[in-house]
Structures are given as C-alpha cells and as structure tokens.
C-alpha cells in the first residue's frame, strides 16, 4: 500500500497479498450516437482485509466502478482481478450491498437474511439466521415484512443478508445514504465492529467526506466525470477514531483541498 503524493495519479503497489486489482479500467456508454466516457484509466489494488472508500461527487461514476468490480457490468477497457482471477460475473463470495432497495419485499426479515443460505441444512440455516439477526439487532422482528420496517432496519437486513453467506468481500454502494444522521452514525460503528471482527475486504462508495475519513484505511478520491483517480489518501489513525484530533482534521482538509473545496463553504 502506498499513499501517493498529492495531485498525481495513483500508481498502485503490486503486492502478492492483493485481494483485488483493477488494471486500466475504462467505461464508455453509447448515447445518442455518441460515446460518453464515464471512467478513464482506473488502476487500483486493494489488500486482503482492507477497508477502502471510493469518494467522489454524485454521478462521477464511482458506482459504475463498484458494479464492474462486483461483476454486474463489464468494463469497456481493462480488467478486474480478484484473487488473481478475472471477474466475469457476480459471485456469492463477494456480496454487493445496495441501499435498502435490495431487500426483497415478499420475504420476512428471516427469509431475507436466509436468502443466500439455500444450500445449508434447515437446522444450520436457522442457526445462521438467528446469529445474524442478533448481530444486527433485529431480534423480535424475524417474522416482520420489510414494509413494516424503518429504512435503517431494512439497511441492517441487507447487511445481515450479505454477511450470512460469509463472503470475503463486501461492496457497499452509499449504503447509509438514505438514513437519518443518527442511524447513519450507528450503522457506521456497527459496520466497523463487524469489519474488525470478521476482517472482510470492504469497498465502500460514498460522497460523504467525513464518512470516508471515519471508516477507511484508504480513501480513493475520484474526479468528476469522466472519473479518474485523483488522489489516494491513507488514513493512518487507529479505530475508534477521534474525529476532532488535529491529524484527522488535517487528512480531511487534504481531501477537501484535492476536491477543490477547502475553506470555501
């Protein structure tokens, strides 16, 4: 892992412990006869067990990167390798967590969390469901349908469903964007607790600078469309982070500066 100097494009260090490597990813969409470039020359490597935030303005294409990494979309150029294999489609070892929209409305909390466990014996499946219901604090709501849950509870159902299949990677696409600020803070610390306990590799897309600096080992700052990696900032503060410390604020200001927003509000 290297933290590249300000302003220069990232040159990822290629190490054998790389979980994920993106090489020269480019993406263009055909529209109205023309071709719109959304991503250009994305090179990135992520270590096993690392927590990486992709940070950028809305619509910059960071979700597209995540969709390419998860195998839902094929890139126009370049390739993504996970554990050395080229990604060619979605895989249960790497779960994509949508905002609460991905919860199935026709299944109960239990049914949703157990959705990926169809290969397990019923007893083991029940045990696993109960474990993850408790992990996300939804005891008592096992039989409830999503329509009776708040946004934060649905979000926790999604996270529990993803964790229940014991993936080694999680892709989170602005997972807490639709939540109120209190629930969002709780969910962030929940996610960190789970990440510290289970050490999964997490790639987390957000447009919230504070969220990125609070959570990530490294923040990948994206430029506006077509998205390029503008800067990679290592957040070398151990958890739990003191978000009023001088070092924290310095890193945060550095990111604001990279985006070109420092002290302008």
């Amino acid at each position, binding site marked *: 892992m290297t933290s590249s100097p300000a302003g220069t494009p990232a040159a990822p260090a290629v190490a054998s412990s790389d979980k994920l490597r993106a090489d020269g990813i480019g993406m263009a969409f055909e529209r109205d006869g023309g071709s719109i470039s959304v991503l250009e020359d994305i090179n990135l490597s992520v270590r096993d067990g690392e927590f990486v935030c992709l940070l950028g303005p809305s619509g910059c294409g960071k979700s597209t990167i995540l969709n390419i990494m998860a195998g839902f979309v094929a890139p126009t150029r370049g390739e993504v390798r996970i554990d050395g294999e080229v990604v060619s489609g979605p895989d*249960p070892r790497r779960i*994509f967590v949508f905002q609460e929209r991905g919860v*199935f409305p026709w299944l109960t909390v239990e049914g949703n969390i157990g959705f*990926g466990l169809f290969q397990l014996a019923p007893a083991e499946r029940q045990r696993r469901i109960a474990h993850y219901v408790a992990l996300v604090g939804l005891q008592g709501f096992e039989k409830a349908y999503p*329509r009776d849950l708040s946004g934060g509870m649905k979000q926790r159902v999604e996270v529990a469903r993803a964790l229940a299949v014991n993936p080694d990677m999680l892709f989170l696409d602005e997972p807490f964007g639709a939540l109120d600020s209190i629930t969002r803070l709780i969910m962030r610390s929940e996610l960190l607790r789970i990440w510290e306990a289970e050490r999964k590799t997490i790639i987390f897309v957000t447009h919230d600078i504070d969220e990125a600096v609070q959570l990530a080992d490294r923040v990948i700052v994206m430029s506006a469309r077509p998205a390029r990696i503008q800067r990679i900032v290592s957040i070398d503060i151990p958890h739990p982070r003191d978000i009023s410390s001088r070092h924290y604020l310095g890193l945060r200001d550095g990111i604001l500066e990279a985006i070109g927003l420092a002290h302008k509000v």
Partner: protein
Amino acid sequence: MSVRYNISDERPSEPVSHPRYQRFDAVVRLLRPLSFVALLLIAWHVAVRLQKAPILPGPLAVGSGLIELARRGLLLKYVVASLFRVTWGYLAAAALGIPLGLSVGWYRRAELALNPWIQVLRPISPLAWIPIAILWFGVGDLTAIFLIFVASFLPLTVTAMNAVAIIPEVYVNVGRNFGLRRTALLYNVLYPAVMPQLVIGLRISLGIAWMVVVAAEMIAVNSGLGFMIVDARNAGNRYDLVVAGMVMIGIIGLLLDIGIRSLERVPSISWGYSDD
C-alpha cells in the same frame, strides 16, 4: 445494540374502537350491504307490481324459479357444469400463458418476435372463435373449455410479460449475486416479484372467463348456466328462470372474485399494493 427501534408505522390506521363495541361494529359492517340488497329487492318488487305489462319477473317469481330448479336437481348440476369448464379452460390458460409471458418478458428478443402477434390477436373477441372452436372440437365440453382458454390466455400472457419487464433490476442482481441461476432465479426472484401484478391479471381474466362460459354454453353445449338461460326462453318463455340464471351467474362471479381477491391479502403478495 444501543438503540431499540419500534415498528415504524407512518400509514394512518383505522381508528380502533373500544373492544366492547367491536362486535357491534362487525354486525353493522355486515348489515349495511345486506340492508341495501334488501332495499333493492323491495324496490324491484314494487316496480314490477306497479307495471301492467310484463317487462321483467319480480324477485318472488325469480326466487321460486330458483327453488324449482334446485328441486329438479338442475341448479347444482348446471353450476357444476359451468364451473368445471371454467376451471379447466382457465387453469390451462394459466399453466401455459404465465410461463410464456414470463419468458417472453425476460428475453427481449422473444418479445420483439411475439409482441406483434399478441397485439393482433388481443382485440379479437373470444366469441369470434366460436365457429372455429366448433369446427375443431365439435359441439361439447371441449369447445367451451377451448373458448375459455382463448379468452383468458392472452390477458394472462400480457400481464406476466409486463410484470417481468418492470421488475426492479436490483432484485435480479441480488439473486445473481447470491449465486442463483436460471430455474432458482425464476422461482426465488422473478416469480415472487411478479406475483402482485399476476394476481391482478388472474382476477381480471377469471372475470372474463366467467363471462365467456355463459356465451359458450348458449351455443356449444346443452348444460350449464348459459344453456339454462337460452333453454328457459326457448322452452316456453320462462323469464323467471332466465333471470334466475342471471342471478346465479352474478352471485357465483362475485364469489369467484372474492376468492381470488383473498390472495391480495397474503403478506408475500400484498407488498405490491402497499401504496394504494
């Protein structure tokens, strides 16, 4: 967890009255439509009595007509005959039309190929098929069943097709992400996702099927409620039996609708109507 959540209920619920009054409420809720029906029957009776020329038999004549049919054992026999035809025609249409619609909606290329055919066939009344049905199946049950099949097949196919087309992509992606392939994806994601739309389609086409069986029985067979109506008129202008047949058709149609509507309250289906 440091924070406890309550079930968030932002939808306004009906005001709940004191338990002592709840049974009373239930009685009122039942009495209201019943008393309205009684009022209509009385109005019908009075209107017929005031009229000199026989335009319509009164409710009493119709009632005794129903009793007469029941005594002769025809009422039950004809109701069963009509329901038998609807059941088979409708089930065959559902068994073929729903999978066809789902796959056509899923594979865009199939939709491009089949959609023109569906759009041409759709405006043709199922009754226009009567001569062809008789040509193929002769006079008998099969003809009536075929007509019901024709009447409900296209609405079901089109509903299933459209329902698949509007499934949010995120559900399909979640299914694929958890490793579901073809059949499993169909049963665990596509099928439950389209159920709310499908139940509406099933309800509409059951109504159509029940209308078509009456018409089919007037022409193609010699039993059933449709036959009963034609037969009562032909065999001595028994208009009391004609109206008795109409009343039975209406009541059974209502019961079928209530039956299929109960599906709309199943929790794994009712989510699709939550924004009413």
